[in-house]
């Protein structure tokens, strides 16, 4: 058990420092580690945990504590979560403070301005990739397009769009 907790901590701490792009970008690497390298779980169990991490409310990185839970129960879940969050969190706070300390420096002004189009491109790319990962054919494309247009036009709580989509999904079956 202690061996399992130790390798959970080590694997997810390593993943933390290369996990650019958040949850959706990490599935291939976690699959390679957890199914291929460590034989912690089977392909089928991994697929089910990915579905839960997408469907459960919360960030896509929920896949990390879910794999930890599968390996070593609740303790495993929190060991994996803390190991995964700590290195990247320290880096983020340090970087955020470094940018905030010199807000008027030419380089910082240029960087903040440059980050806006990057954010727009990353959001659009991530949304389109997620739409194709829903594996729901024409209905999925129609739902994603309708929500994208409606949510741009009307500023209501986004939860309503998710609930409406769930109702459509239940009706189509």
């Amino acid at each position, binding site marked *: 058990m202690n061996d399992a907790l130790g390798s959970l901590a080590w694997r997810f701490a390593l993943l933390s420092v290369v996990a650019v792009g958040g949850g959706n970008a990490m599935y291939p690497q976690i699959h390679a580690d957890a199914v291929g390298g460590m034989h912690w779980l089977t392909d089928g169990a991994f697929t*089910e*945990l990915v579905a839960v991490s997408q*469907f459960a409310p919360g960030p896509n990185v929920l896949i990390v504590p879910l794999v930890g839970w599968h390996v070593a129960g609740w303790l495993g879940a929190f060991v994996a979560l803390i190991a995964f969050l700590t290195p990247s969190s320290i880096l983020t706070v340090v970087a955020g403070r470094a940018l905030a300390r010199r807000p008027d420096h030419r380089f910082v002004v240029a960087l903040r301005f440059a980050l806006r189009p*990057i954010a727009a491109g990353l959001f659009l*790319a991530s*949304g389109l990739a997620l739409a194709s990962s829903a594996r729901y054919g024409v209905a999925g494309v129609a739902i994603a397009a309708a929500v994208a247009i409606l949510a741009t036009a009307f500023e209501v709580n986004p939860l309503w769009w998710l609930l409406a989509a769930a109702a459509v999904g239940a009706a189509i079956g």
Partner: protein
Amino acid sequence: METVTPTPLQLLLGFAQLSLQGFGGVGGQSLHFLTRDRKWLTDAEFAEDSALCQALPGPNTGNLALIVGDRAAGTLGAVCALIGFAVPSTVLAIFIAIGLGRLSHVPRVAAVESAVVAAAAGLVIASGARIARQLGRAPLMLAVAAGILLAIDVAHVPLWLSVVVGVPVAMLLGAARASR
């Protein structure tokens, strides 16, 4: 646009709420929550901070929680925001994994799940469109956004590489425009 400064407790509860209302990832919800609902960030701050958070490793919205929390209340604020973001949703997800283990083969459950993921994708696209609309007067910046989109979704360039190349290009184009 006026913003307010949250306390550590407000950060803990606020990011717990944001995290628990996010299906298929929290990215699509965070713009509305942070700029309209709580007014912790302006639209421009959100665009800059979330790009920084996507460029850094770790969960995008978790990093955003750290930046917002640290700016409002230092290290305590950052820790509270991150705990609120990560812990309640982890506990709930494990209970769902326990329960869903028995339901996952029901077709209607799979259909609802796919529909919700598709809608979540639409919300992320809408967030991108809203930021892109603010770039309207800077066609070079729109071109950078389009370049990032094509690099990742069409050319399958790794995300870290797209950011490492895209940011200096956008800075150079911005500097060229400013000096004209």
